[in-house]
């Protein structure tokens, strides 16, 4: 329970920080804000890595991929897919935001 309450505290405070900062973003930058914040929401990659690289648990459903000499559990398979998804989000998001923002800077 205590860890939940701590997490809840962090959650609520972070939302307030978010509101304070984002309200100051000018409309001109709303598209880069969306793509950039989107990239940040790719932070799920942390959880994805923990799933993909985790030890194989007895309860889990296990696949063996013989030619890769790899034993894979269902949770690591889900983690693997999640790593792909989250990395697309992170890499694509930050790169496209950079590309856009360079355009805004050019004529400064």
């Amino acid at each position, binding site marked *: 329970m205590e860890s939940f309450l701590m997490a809840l505290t962090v959650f609520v405070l*972070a939302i307030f920080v*978010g509101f304070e900062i984002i309200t100051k973003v000018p409309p001109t930058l709303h598209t880069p804000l969306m793509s950039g914040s989107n990239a940040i929401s790719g932070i*799920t990659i942390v959880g994805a890595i923990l799933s993909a690289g985790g030890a194989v648990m007895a309860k889990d459903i296990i696949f063996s991929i013989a030619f890769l000499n790899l034993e894979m559990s269902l949770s690591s398979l889900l983690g693997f897919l999640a790593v792909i998804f989250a990395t697309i989000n992170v890499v694509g998001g930050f790169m496209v935001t950079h590309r856009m923002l360079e355009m805004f800077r050019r004529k400064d």
Partner: protein
Amino acid sequence: MPTEYSTIHVIITIAYLLASVLFIFGLKGLTHPRTAVRGNLLGATGMFIAVIVTLLYQEVVSFQLIIAGVVIGGLIGAVLAVKIEMTAMPQLVALFNGFGGGASVLVAGGELVKATSDPGLQALIAIAASGLIGAVTFWGSLVAFGKLQGVGVPDAPVRYPGEQIVKIILLLASIIFGIMMVMDFTAIGYYWYLVILASVLGVLLVIAIGGADMPVVIALLNSYSGLAAAATGFVLSNNVLIIAGSLVGASGLILTNIMCKAMNRSLANVLFGGFGAVDTSKPADDIYANVKATSPDELAMLLETSRRVVLVPGYGMAVSQAQHAVRDLFNLLESKGVEMEFGVHPVAGRMPGHMNVLLAEADIPYDKLKEMDEVNSILEQTDVAIVIGANDVVNPVARTDPNSPIAGMPIIDVDKAKTVIVIKRSLSPGFAGIPNPLFALDNALMLFGDGKKMIQETVTALKEG
């Protein structure tokens, strides 16, 4: 989180804190175009740190899948980011949103699958929430992508009788599956039923929305992708996910709110209402009886003698890729000493800030892009207002007719300029489906044709003239 605080655990926690601070500084950088590039790089650095220290966890025992996933995902993301046309930015952002949501579904599912002992009530509720929000985000975003890209789903809203009841039933049913999953963590099947129902819900929510309402949906899905990440943070008791997720959630909510205000509609009305039947009380032919057409040559002559020009772009500018032609016009007029500025309505285009990105791509300095209120204050002293590919956002009916579907929507008052030139292919209505009396005003002239071509011809005429 382990109860004993080993050194490595302290390092990881501090690094996550650092990453969170970098995300906050990164977003803060986006408050000005000058600091924005650095802000984005700070955010990316934060993400890099978070990823690297996660590899230090003792729970991470094998790296093949992680490396393979990062390489595959990184390549896809990089190619998309480099190749995408600026006009296609809304669908790309929609797609990235979706992947974020999808990742949350998968991570929460993975946690459930490998749980050997009861993860506890909070974690289970968070798993259900991740699955629900993540699946809605993933499928909703894919539909939004399809609509904007013009593949698979019609751009127009898809509506049918009883649709709200269907959605409510889907939501309730997925919550019930969530509750059943929370009561018995070994019943993994319930989680996937929940995800399937939430997926259908995501599709139905977005398929009912179309055209000019897309900015609201994109902003809302942006917010959901953040909330999904935060929910996954509760699953893992991981603060960096919670902080990053709630920052994004807040950002999406603010943008959603701005978009709704700019249309004078509530979020519920955008999501569930849509525009009603088309008002046929006044036939469009009557309204358009006095429409006058003009030519690029005539527009060039008008511009030649102007001192102040305001251009109001809409989605049509993106469709005809006219932003570079507009830049040529801008440069030419500046060189002739004509002051040219741009009036950008908050909901112009298909996502928040869409027009600004296109004009920035074409090298228009950002201080020439004026917000609605600012441009409205100068329109009375403006000689020529050029509307290109916009319709509802300049429809004076919003001010005058309280029964109109767009009544009370803040608009750009181009009708107050000495002359209004509307560049448009035909007199067809905008997304709201109503005629625009602006086109028939005494001071309005229609320039019928493709936006890009018309601007180019005007530029040529100006050079020759």
